[in-house]
C-alpha cells in the first residue's frame, strides 16, 4: 500500500510503528525503560502485564498523549517530536479506544463520529455522515445514531468509540483495556468488533487481558513488567511456553483463578 511519507522515510513502508530505546519518566519515577518495539503494517499485537507496569503509558506514547523523554518513536514514517504539526499528522492516522470510552457526552453518536472527519479531515458533512453510518452499521448500532452517549450501555458506548476512531480512516488502532470497564455480558460484543477489525488487516496494538482474544487474533503477545518489555512471542509459544519467571507467574495468576 502506498503511504505518503511527508518527511523522508528512514524506514520502509512496511513498518507502522518503530520505537527505539525509548525512556519515560514521571518526575523522578522511571516508568518506561529502554522500550524497543517494531510493529509491521497489518500486525496485531497484544500487550499484557500486571497493573502499573506501564502498558497504558507505552501505547499512549504512540499518539503522544504522553511525552517520552529519550529515544525515538516513529509512527507511519513520522517521528514524534515536540513539533505540533507532526503530532497532529500522527494522530490523524492513529485511532485510539480508551478504557472509559471518552465519548463526548454533549454530542449525539452521529456527531461524535462525524466531528473529527469534518473538522480535521475537512470532509463534507453529508459524506462524513454516510461514512459514520457505514461504521455504525459495522459495529451493529446504526439505530442509536441520534441518541446521546449517556443513553447507551457500556458495550454500546465502546463500540461507538471504535466506530468514531474508524471514521477517521486510521492506519493504526490503539486499544487501552477496551473491555475492562464493561459488565461481563458486554465484553464479547466489543471483542467481536475487534476480531472483525483484526481480520480485515488493521494494524492493532491492544492492551488487554482477554487471553482468548490474544490467542485468536494476535501475531505477537508482549509482556511488560516494571516499565520494561520482558518477553514477546507468538501467542501459542507465549502461553504454552513462557520463558521468564515473571511471565509464568503473571499467566498463572490470570489463567487459573
Amino acid at each position: 500500500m502506498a503511504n505518503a511519507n511527508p518527511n523522508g522515510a528512514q524506514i520502509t513502508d512496511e513498518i507502522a510503528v518503530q520505537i527505539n530505546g525509548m525512556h519515560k519518566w514521571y518526575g523522578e519515577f522511571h516508568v518506561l525503560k529502554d522500550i524497543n518495539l517494531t510493529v509491521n503494517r497489518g500486525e496485531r499485537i497484544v500487550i499484557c502485564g500486571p497493573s502499573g507496569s506501564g502498558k497504558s503509558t507505552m501505547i499512549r506514547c504512540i499518539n503522544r498523549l504522553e511525552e517520552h523523554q529519550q529515544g525515538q518513536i516513529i509512527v507511519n514514517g513520522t517521528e514524534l517530536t515536540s513539533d505540533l504539526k507532526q503530532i497532529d499528522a500522527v494522530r490523524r492516522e492513529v485511532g485510539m479506544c480508551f478504557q472509559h470510552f471518552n465519548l463526548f457526552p454533549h454530542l449525539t453518536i452521529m456527531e461524535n463520529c462525524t466531528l473529527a472527519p469534518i473538522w480535521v479531515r475537512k470532509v463534507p458533512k453529508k459524506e462524513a455522515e454516510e461514512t459514520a453510518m457505514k461504521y455504525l452499521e459495522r459495529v451493529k448500532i446504526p439505530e442509536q445514531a441520534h441518541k446521546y452517549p449517556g443513553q447507551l450501555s457500556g458495550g454500546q458506548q465502546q463500540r461507538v468509540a471504535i466506530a468514531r476512531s474508524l471514521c477517521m480512516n486510521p492506519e493504526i488502532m490503539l486499544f487501552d483495556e477496551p473491555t475492562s470497564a464493561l459488565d461481563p455480558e458486554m465484553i464479547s460484543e466489543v471483542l467481536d468488533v475487534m476480531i472483525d477489525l483484526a481480520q480485515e488487516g488493521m494494524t492493532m496494538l491492544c492492551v488487554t487481558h482477554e487471553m482468548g482474544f490474544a490467542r485468536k487474533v494476535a501475531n505477537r503477545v508482549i509482556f511488560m513488567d516494571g516499565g520494561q518489555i520482558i518477553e514477546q512471542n507468538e501467542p501459542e509459544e507465549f502461553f504454552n511456553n513462557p520463558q521468564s519467571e515473571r511471565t509464568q507467574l503473571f499467566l498463572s495468576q490470570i489463567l487459573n483463578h
Partner: protein
Amino acid sequence: MSKAYVNDERHPDLPPPASTVGAVGWMREHLFSSPANILMTVVSIGLLAYVVPPMVSWLFTSAVWSGGADACRANPDAACWTFVGARFDQFVYGFYEKTERWRVDIMLILLFAGIAALVYEKTPGRKWIGMFMLIGYPILSWIMLLGGDWGTPNISLYNVIVVLLPIVGIALLSYDRLPSARTIGIVLTAFYLLAIALLLGLTAAGKTELWIGSTVIYSLVRLDTIIITLIPFLGLFALTKSGEMERRGTIGIAMLVVFAILVLGFFFDLPAPSSLDMTLVDRVVVVSMVEVPTKQWGGFMLTLVIALTGIVASLPLGVLLALGRRSNMPAIRVLCVVFIEFWRGVPLITVLFMASVMLPLFLPPGVSFDQLLRALIGVALFSAAYMAEVVRGGLQAIPKGQYEGADSLGLTYWQKMRLIILPQALKIVIPGIVNTFIGLFKDTTLVLIIGLFDLLGAVQASIADPNWNAKSVAYTGYVFTAFVFWVCCYGMSQYSRYLERKLHTGHKR
C-alpha cells in the same frame, strides 16, 4: 414444611393510593406531614396574613394612580404611582435630548426583538441574529445613541487597495475548501506588493500627491501607515507560504478582525487611521444626526448600555482569560493570573473612580476619552476577571478523558476547546455565569458615584425634585426601581434554568 411463597402470576399495575396524589395528597405530604411541619405551615400562613393585606393596600388598592403631586401629599401612606407615570420618560432616557429619543426607542425595540428571537428556538437564522446582536448591535447602538456625523474622514484609492485587497484575499484563503487558494493568494500578494512599491517609490521621488483629473490617487504615505498595512501583508504571505494551510482558517479570521478594527477606525475617526490622510473624496458622511453626548445619557437606557456591554464583553474575555490561566505557556499563564487577580482584588467602586478620576492624570494632556467609555471598559474588565474564574471552574470539572479523546482524534487546541471542552464546561457553569451577569447588572448602579445617572440615579434625581416633595414619592421610586431590576434579573435567572434543562443530555456515568 410449608411451601415457600412465590408469585406465579403477573401482578397487575395498580394506581397509586389516593393519599399520595391530588391536591389532598400534596397538602398532606408537603404541609402537614409532621408536627413540626404543621407548626411551620400555621406560622407561615399567619405571617402572610399579617404582611400581605397592608402590602396590597399600599401598592394597589389605596395607591394614587392619577392626579399630581397634591394627590400624593393628600394620601401619604400609599404608593404614588402617578409620580412614576409623570417621570417615566426620565427614568427611561435620563437627560437624553427629548427630540432624539426615538433613536433610543428604535434601539430598545431592536434589543427586545432580538432577545425574543434568540429565546424562541424556532426562529429561522438564529445564528445570524445572534451574531448581529453580539457584534453589529453594539456598534449600531453606539452610532445611533451618540449621533453626530458618521463617515470616513477620507477615502483614497490607496485606502481602498490597502484595505480591500487583503480582506478579499484573506476571506478567500480562509475558505478552506477553495481549490486554487494558493494561486489566488500569490496573485493577490503580488498585486499588493506592487501597490506598496509604487506608493513608496512615489514618496521617495518626493511626490506627495498624484492627481488624475480631479481625483487624488495618492497623497503622502506615512511611516505608520506602512507599518499598519504591513501587518496584513505579512499575514497574507504567511498564509500563502504555509504549505498545508491547516491553520489558515484561524489566521484568516484573526486577520479579518484586525482589519475590521482598522476599517472601523476609519469610521470612528480614531487617531491612527485618520493619519492616513489620503483624500479621494474629502469626506463621506454616511449618517448625520444630532450628537447627544454621553453625559446626557441616563436612566434605564444607560443601565442597559453598561450592563449589556459588560455582559457581551465579559464572557469571551473571561473564556480567553480562563484558557490562558490554564495554558502550558508560562508567560501567558502569568499574565492572565496577574490580570485576573488584580481586577478581582479591587472593588468596582475603586475601578470606576480610577477610570474616571485617575486615568486622565496618566494620559497625555489633550487626550481625553469619554467618561462613559472609561466606565464601560472598567466594568467589562472587572466582570471579565470574575467570569474567568467561573469558567475556570467549569474547565476543571471536565474529565481528562475528554481532552484525550479530542487529542486522539487529531483536533487542534482551538478545535478541542471550542467543540469539546468549552461547550461542556460552559454548560456546567451556566448558573455561575448568570450569577455573574446578575451581579454585574445590579452593580451598574455604582456608576452613580462617577456622575452617570443610571436608572437608580434618574429616580433619585426625580425624588429630589421639590415639586414632588411627598413622603410616599421616595418609597414609590425605590420600589419601582427595585421592581425593574428584579424583573430583569429574575428573567435572566429563569432563562438560565431553562437553558440548563434544555442542554442536559445527561445520564452521565
